[in-house]
């Protein structure tokens, strides 16, 4: 009798849970593959790694399929060698599977729509992720982000105070810009027509998108609100394959909408957030809802088309192209609306090919941006997207997804494309034509003073970056805003100057030769003379988000992605200084 192989505890659990995850669609996809190879060239990983068959969708699918066949399929159970069926026994084998399902596939579904048999690899790849997550086998970033979403209700660990603080700060910015103290970002207002939900990335790294959306609602005279809790429409359950997390996050949001009795849940521009909230959340959470849900793209499009807001497309005077997010387009059919809106708010639009349901992934999808161990592989596969972007001749790429913003920024920097990435909300806000306001007499003329709102006068800022061009750029921006700038082009220099100059704030690049920004940051935090100086990270490596969550020291006070524009830098630095001012 052949020796019975020992199975590790985790492998045993994976097998026990496998059957519970199977539904008819998944089983169909697992049995129907005929190994025709038609899907091979549809995957960006294959195109960027010619000659390596381990990236082929069917090959990757087979790493899951072989377990299914060994345990559930008759031929595989009786004659395993005949159909290459194989069970899983060890933790090492689970690690190998992790490398495939997390590190070699972004669940973009491009192979699905190119498979003649209708095999939906992305769906069962997600199932396999869920199985591995259930036994704790997952990339570190996935564990960290999932934990934040379970415990703090949002996937970036944003605390309630920081969130509310950011909304108030954006409200003040908006009031100043519009010169109207009545311009508000309402919180927890009941019976509204629109409940606006956002991605925590907007709070953390891109608050300008919140201000831009608020400006659009203001211009449209919308009866809207944001929520103090249940505001995160992103859902890491989609990436981790954890349906329980997915359901719990979605239901948290739906219940808050119901509590506030809002008529419509508007989801800000985020591909996976839209798919999770609008298309999957009700299924994961087994919940029906009595309100409607729509993407902010549709909301904005309606405003423009119905004349509720006036637009001057001439204000957006660059050359624009549009990147379809996989989740938004290929999984939710949202490709005409964003194009229609884009063409209304810019004058020069260039299509990208292939596009719509056939577009290539930004390569940061499926949670890839949180898995820093696969960054090199991801960036290599991004060559396909880089070539696509370059061929458009555009200088700005527009996308309706925050994840794609990060993924695209990363590859643009890596392949030195010199393009900007923006979202429709920014372009619509930029193109807004606002009616001149007639101030009622009883309204006080000046808003409450905001510390630092009058520029950065008197603030001493230490700027650290090894790229001379960026150092000059950021110094000029800060000096134009009346700050006193001290420059450091290496980590060692920054540490010395921080101690001797005691600046009000330090901006820090993470990727520097020699002593890395991470090391510099920790040293600053551990030194009693510098530990209280606020730090704003300015980096072109979004995957370094991990630093913020996994630190042994308090997190940085601010964070800006490169390429950063003047507004982003000044807004974020003012926010950090303002928070510091309030603390003191």
């Amino acid at each position, binding site marked *: 009798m052949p020796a019975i192989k020992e199975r590790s505890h985790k492998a045993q659990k994976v097998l026990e849970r496998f059957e519970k995850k*199977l*539904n*008819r*669609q*998944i*089983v*169909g*996809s697992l*049995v*129907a593959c*005929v*190994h025709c*190879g*038609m*899907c*091979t*060239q*549809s995957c960006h990983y*294959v195109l960027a790694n010619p*000659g390596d*068959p*381990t990236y*082929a969708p*069917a090959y990757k699918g*087979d790493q899951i399929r072989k377990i299914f066949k060994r345990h559930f399929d008759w*031929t595989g159970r009786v004659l395993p060698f*005949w*159909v*290459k069926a194989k069970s899983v026994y060890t933790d090492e084998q689970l690690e190998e599977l992790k490398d495939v399902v997390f590190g070699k596939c972004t669940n973009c579904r491009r192979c*699905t*729509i*190119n*498979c*003649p*048999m*209708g095999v*939906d690899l992305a769906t069962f790849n997600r199932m396999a992720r869920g199985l591995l997550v259930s036994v704790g086998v997952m990339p570190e970033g996935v564990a960290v982000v999932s934990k934040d979403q379970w415990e703090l209700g949002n996937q970036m660990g944003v605390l309630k105070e920081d969130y509310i603080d950011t909304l108030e700060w954006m409200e003040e910015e908006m009031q100043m810009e519009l010169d109207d103290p009545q311009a508000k970002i309402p919180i927890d207002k009941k019976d509204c027509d629109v409940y606006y939900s956002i991605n925590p990335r907007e709070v953390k790294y891109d608050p300008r998108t919140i201000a831009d959306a608020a400006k659009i609602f203001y211009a449209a005279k919308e009866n809207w609100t944001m929520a103090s809790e249940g505001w995160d429409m992103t859902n890491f359950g989609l990436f981790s394959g954890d349906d329980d997390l997915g359901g719990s996050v979605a239901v948290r949001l739906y219940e808050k909408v119901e509590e506030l009795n809002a008529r419509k849940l508007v989801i800000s521009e985020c591909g996976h957030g839209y798919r999770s909230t*609008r*298309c*999957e959340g009700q*299924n994961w959470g*087994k*919940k*029906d809802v009595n309100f*409607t*849900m729509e993407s902010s793209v549709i909301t904005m499009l309606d405003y423009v088309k119905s004349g509720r807001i006036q637009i001057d497309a001439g204000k957006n005077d660059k050359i624009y192209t549009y990147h379809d997010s996989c989740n938004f*387009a*290929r*999984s*939710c*059919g*949202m*490709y*005409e609306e964003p194009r229609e809106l884009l063409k209304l708010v810019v004058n020069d639009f260039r299509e990208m*090919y*292939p*596009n*719509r*349901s*056939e577009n290539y992934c930004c390569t940061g999808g499926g949670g890839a941006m949180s898995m820093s161990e696969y960054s090199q592989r991801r960036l290599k596969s991004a060559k396909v997207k880089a070539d696509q972007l370059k061929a458009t001749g555009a200088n700005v790429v527009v996308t309706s997804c925050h994840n794609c913003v990060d993924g695209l920024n990363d590859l643009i920097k890596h392949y030195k494309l010199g393009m900007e990435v923006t979202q429709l909300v920014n372009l619509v806000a930029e193109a807004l034509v606002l009616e001149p306001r007639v101030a009622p007499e009883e309204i006080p003329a000046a808003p409450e003073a905001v510390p630092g709102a009058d520029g950065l006068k008197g603030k001493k800022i230490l700027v650290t970056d090894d790229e001379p061009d960026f150092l000059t750029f950021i110094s000029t921006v800060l000096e134009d805003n009346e700050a006193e700038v001290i420059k450091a082009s290496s980590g060692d220099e920054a540490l010395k100057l921080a101690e001797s100059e005691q600046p009000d704030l330090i901006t820090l690049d993470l990727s520097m030769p020699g002593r890395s920004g991470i090391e510099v940051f920790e040293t600053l935090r551990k030194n009693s003379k510098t530990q209280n100086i606020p730090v704003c990270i300015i980096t072109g490596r979004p995957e370094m988000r991990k630093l913020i969550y996994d630190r042994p020291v308090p997190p940085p006070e601010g964070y800006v992605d490169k390429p950063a524009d003047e507004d982003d830098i000044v807004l974020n630095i003012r926010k950090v200084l303002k928070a510091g001012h309030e603390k003191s």
Partner: protein
Amino acid sequence: MSEFLHFVEHPLQEIALLIMAVVYITRLRWLMKFPAGKERQAATGAIDTTPRRGIIYSWMNIANPMGMESTRTKIFFYAQFVVFHLGVTSAIALSFIIPYWPHVLEIPGVQPLLQFIIGAAFIVGLFRMIRRYGDKYIRAISTPDDHFSLLLLTVWFLFAFLSVPNDTSGGEWHLVTYFILTAFFLIYVPFSKISHYLYYPFTRYYLGKTMGHRGVYPIEHNPRT
């Protein structure tokens, strides 16, 4: 006709068909025991993309080479697919024509037509064998079942081609081999990748339903590649 040829043409085929039917029904029941995933949410995407239209579009995918980049950019490969599957259909039809309606083969043009299709399918089978062994990507995903199924079909095409005239004047060996291969094929199919035609309506139904509900199918705007 010898007794043996009669046996392989009639009782053997009938037994094989019966076994295949039983195994298929068992297989379908097995597939149906898994719960079907449901969509609670309201539809997304364009208003004219419905689950029903999505399902029809998805089923028709087989006849819509322009619908997918993978077939649109490999028209020669798609043509091979068409020829191969027409060959399978013709060779199966032949296994009913010879025992039950041999007079059909007397109709002018029928024999050359069947021989042309089955012969072309045999050549495609040879091409496919070369591809399965020679292409690095295909070799990596191929199982012994994939290789054997292809070999089985290609050899079956050869004997079907030789059997089309239904002529025993030079001996019965080609007809006997063809019918034995057909019986083996019928019994082996449910256990092999050849049973994919049983799954095609299922996978395509559910994918079409989902993609239709989500506004992706039918893909109206064929993107330029």
